[in-house]
């Protein structure tokens, strides 16, 4: 093809990333290094966006690179799905790159960042455009490894090292599971190329195996409850720009892999009814657990990490619904669910990226992640506060921002779903929808807490008092996703049309005609008479009314008087009076104490009389049950076995000789048993080797043997 296709642009993007990785070889000065990396990353992002959009507009393409295995060069390909995720990568990478230019200014040892950040990006792009199992796994693991090095970027705190270790371990586990899933598909299709895997017919057993392996692999990587234990440790300890990328993009790459394998390679045709149920259940539990735990965090970035788990849950609810509907031959509705999930995917990329960047800015200027030490930052960092607020509103699924659109679509999928196979299923769908509603509302509570405690009220520490506004690079980096959040909230119709290629690819149905009926202004997923939503109208209405009220009520030159706030008559309000992060979530703790099982310690020091309380200290620690009940026991078991085995390594030489002795005896015994068995099977054992080419019977028998084993 003579004209440039999406695939070429994508490859160009990866090349740019590689260049950025190699830049330390030529550039020495830190300042230049930073600038060059950010510039190259920005270019990569721009190219990714370009590739994504052109891919979504229908410019697909595939090619093979002279890399990889000898008999199988790397296949790369861009279809609608890949294009969408390329777009997603670029959409957050661009602001992140700009943000990094400011964020990394004070970083001392820049080299690892410069090497591994682009490598990380390269891995993600590679996964998305890969078109065979080997390439997929290669880039997947590159992504994991690079991100590990980024998590342990600041490796002087022990907690970071621990987090990094667990992260790498779980990432490796995920990788191996996914590898297993691919191996199943490979065994079924006999080829590593995706096309062959698509075409290969799958027996239900194989399909289930592949599905389970993939689901658990990608679930681990995406932080689905109860496999999420690593996530809330790993994301906070990374530098701000990195946690933005990890939470914003990397988790979505896991979603991509999920869709790629389960929807694309296994194919909607092979779905079984309980797959959807499983995904739906996992999604609901992740959504609820994630947000409940997020509510209890007083570490800002940890809170955000848990909320990522929640959002992954929401995405999975959409996917699970879609899988159920696809199973029961409702392609149109399934497409709606799929689109809802994808829409939420990109939404979460945007606002979670923005949130982490904001958190990075806050941590950067206060020097702590502890919300209890923050407060009142809205006065010191107005820009950050405003942008963070936008993200909070979006993630709380409030109109007119983007978060609401995707959740609304998910609701529509659930509410408008017609009768499914059994009443049980049909009743389960709305239940999950209710869980989604609960999660959404809790998320709102959670982010009221986040924003309120961090930015509002009075400063709770000197660090908060002396906080300073961020520089223009970081500001610029945060403004872009904020605007995108609003844009995606206002123009859902156009976005859905852009995404339409994906349901066409996976389900062979198109949403456009049903969506477009009332033009760009009205979002009518199925039909206007069933459900409709128009953010622009709502927004204009609000602007009109609000403006009117403002003009009406706001008298010119009428200064507002300020005075101290009311605190039951005590003259001076101080910062210790206000609600803290943990007190805000206290009702929740009490209501859901069954889930939290909080460890609370209350110390009251009294002087002489029981009423003269001098000081009260309240400590609360909320456990993550997944870690306590799942991770720890397994680890302990393995270590116990290791210990047992280690005893064997502490004997003297004779016992080792004894092992050799026993081994040979064992082998000989085994042999005699096997031979007697063989003699019973075919009596004339002696004659068998008298026939001239004795290998032939051997070959045949052996082959039958392997057939049996297959």
């Amino acid at each position, binding site marked *: 093809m003579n004209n440039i296709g999406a695939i070429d642009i994508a490859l160009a993007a990866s090349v740019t990333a590689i260049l950025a990785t190699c830049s330390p070889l030529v550039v020495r000065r830190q300042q230049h290094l930073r600038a060059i990396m950010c510039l190259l990353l920005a270019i990569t992002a721009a190219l990714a966006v370009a590739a994504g959009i052109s891919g979504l507009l229908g410019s697909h393409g595939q090619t093979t690179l002279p890399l990889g295995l000898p008999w199988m060069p790397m296949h790369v390909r861009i279809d609608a799905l890949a294009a969408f995720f390329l777009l997603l990568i670029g959409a957050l990478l661009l602001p992140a790159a700009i943000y990094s230019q400011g964020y990394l200014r004070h970083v001392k040892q820049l080299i690892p960042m410069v090497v591994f950040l682009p490598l990380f990006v390269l891995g993600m792009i590679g996964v998305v455009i890969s078109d065979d199992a080997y390439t997929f796994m290669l880039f997947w693991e590159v992504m994991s490894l690079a991100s590990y090095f980024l998590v342990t970027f600041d490796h002087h705190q022990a907690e970071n090292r621990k987090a990094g270790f667990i992260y790498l371990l779980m990432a490796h586990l995920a990788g191996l599971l996914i590898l297993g899933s691919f191996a199943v598909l490979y065994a079924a299709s006999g080829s590593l190329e995706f096309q062959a895997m698509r075409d290969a017919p799958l027996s239900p057993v194989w399909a289930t195996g592949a599905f389970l392996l993939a689901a658990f692999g990608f679930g681990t990587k995406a932080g689905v409850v109860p496999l999420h234990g690593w996530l809330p440790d790993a994301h906070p300890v990374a530098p701000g720009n990195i946690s933005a990328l990890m939470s914003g993009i990397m988790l979505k790459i896991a979603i991509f892999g999920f869709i790629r394998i389960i929807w694309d390679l296994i194919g909607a045709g092979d779905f079984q009814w309980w797959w959807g149920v499983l995904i739906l259940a996992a999604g609901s539990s992740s959504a609820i657990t994630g947000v409940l735990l997020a509510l209890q965090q007083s570490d800002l970035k940890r809170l955000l990490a848990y909320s990522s788990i929640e959002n992954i849950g929401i995405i999975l609810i959409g996917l699970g619904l879609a899988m159920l509907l696809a199973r029961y031959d409702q392609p149109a509705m399934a497409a709606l669910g799929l689109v809802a999930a994808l829409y939420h995917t990109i939404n979460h990329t945007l606002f979670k990226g923005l949130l982490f960047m904001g958190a990075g800015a806050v941590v950067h200027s206060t020097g702590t992640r502890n919300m209890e030490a923050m407060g009142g930052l809205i006065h010191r960092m107005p820009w950050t506060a405003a942008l963070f607020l936008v993200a909070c509103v979006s993630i709380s699924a409030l109109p007119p921002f983007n978060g609401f659109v995707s959740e609304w679509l998910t609701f529509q999928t659930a509410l408008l779903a017609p009768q499914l196979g059994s009443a049980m299923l049909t009743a389960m769908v709305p239940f999950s929808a209710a869980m989604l509603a609960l999660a959404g509302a809790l998320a709102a509570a959670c982010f009221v807490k986040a924003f309120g405690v961090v930015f509002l009220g009075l400063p709770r520490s000197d660090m908060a008092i002396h906080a300073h506004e961020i520089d223009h690079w970081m500001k610029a980096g945060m403004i872009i996703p904020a605007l995108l959040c609003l844009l995606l909230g206002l123009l859902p119709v156009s976005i859905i049309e852009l995404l339409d290629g994906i349901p066409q690819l996976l389900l062979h149905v198109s949403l456009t005609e049903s969506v477009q009926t009332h033009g760009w202004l009205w979002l009518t997923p199925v039909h206007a008479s069933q459900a409709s939503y128009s953010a622009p109208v709502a927004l204009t209405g609000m602007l009109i009314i609000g403006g009117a009220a403002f003009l009406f009520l706001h008298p010119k030159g009428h200064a507002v008087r300020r005075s101290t706030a009311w605190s039951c008559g005590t003259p001076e309000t101080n910062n210790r009076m206000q609600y803290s992060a943990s007190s805000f979530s206290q009702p929740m703790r009490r209501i859901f104490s069954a889930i939290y099982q909080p460890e609370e310690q209350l110390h009251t020091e009294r002087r002489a009389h029981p009423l003269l309380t001098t000081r009260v200290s309240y400590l609360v620690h909320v456990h993550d049950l997944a870690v306590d009940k799942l991770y720890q026991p397994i680890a302990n078991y393995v270590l116990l076995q290791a*210990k047992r085995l280690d005893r064997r*390594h502490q004997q*003297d*030489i*004779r016992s080792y*000789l004894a092992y050799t002795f026993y081994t040979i005896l064992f082998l000989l*015994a085994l042999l005699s048993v096997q031979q007697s068995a063989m003699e019973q099977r075919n009596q004339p054992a002696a004659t068998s080797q008298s026939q001239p080419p004795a290998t032939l019977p051997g070959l045949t028998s052996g082959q039958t043997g392997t057939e049996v084993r297959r």
Partner: protein
Amino acid sequence: MNGTLVQQLVDGLAALMLLTSFALLAQHRMISVLHWFAGQGLLLAVTAAIVAYGTGSDELYISAIMTLLLKGLLLPWLLWRVIRQLQVHREVEPLLNSSLTMLIALGVTLFSFHMIQPIEKISQLITRDSMAIATACVLLGMLMMITRRKAITQVIGFLAVENSLFFAAIGSTNGMPLVVEIGIAFDVLIAALIFGLFFFQIRTTFDSLEVEAMNAHLIHKDDDE
């Protein structure tokens, strides 16, 4: 002298071989262990010679002489010097008491006989029976290495295994090709030299030839328990 006679002779020698192995296993006094070891060496040489006569292959004469020199004289002498210089005379009682060891040894022998049955059926060689014996001897040698504490007795056990290998080579396959035999002999020689070297080092570093003494330096005990 016809083949059957040779075969009978070899079988007799095989029986003796087995006897020596048992004796080595049973002995406690270092010197007598050494004597039995030397005896085994001689036995091998004789076997080699007889088989050589029976098959009329000159190679085997050479290897017979080699065996006589190396295993019958040189190695015992070396070990004897070591013993004298290091004053190790009496092996402290072995791990298992001797009667139990004997029982195990018998069991092992029976097992090896059972294992070698199929071979016995198909081999046309004049000396196939000795294969079973050789196997038994190998295992007995290992047993000896396992049950003894002193480094020297371990070495003797090792050499006993070598002997029985050699016996297998001659007794049941009429000897390996010369090159291989020379190679093997060469290796055994070097091994013996290194052994000698070691004895003195071990003695000087651990002032004992007990195996446990060495062990202490290798076991990486957990301190975290």
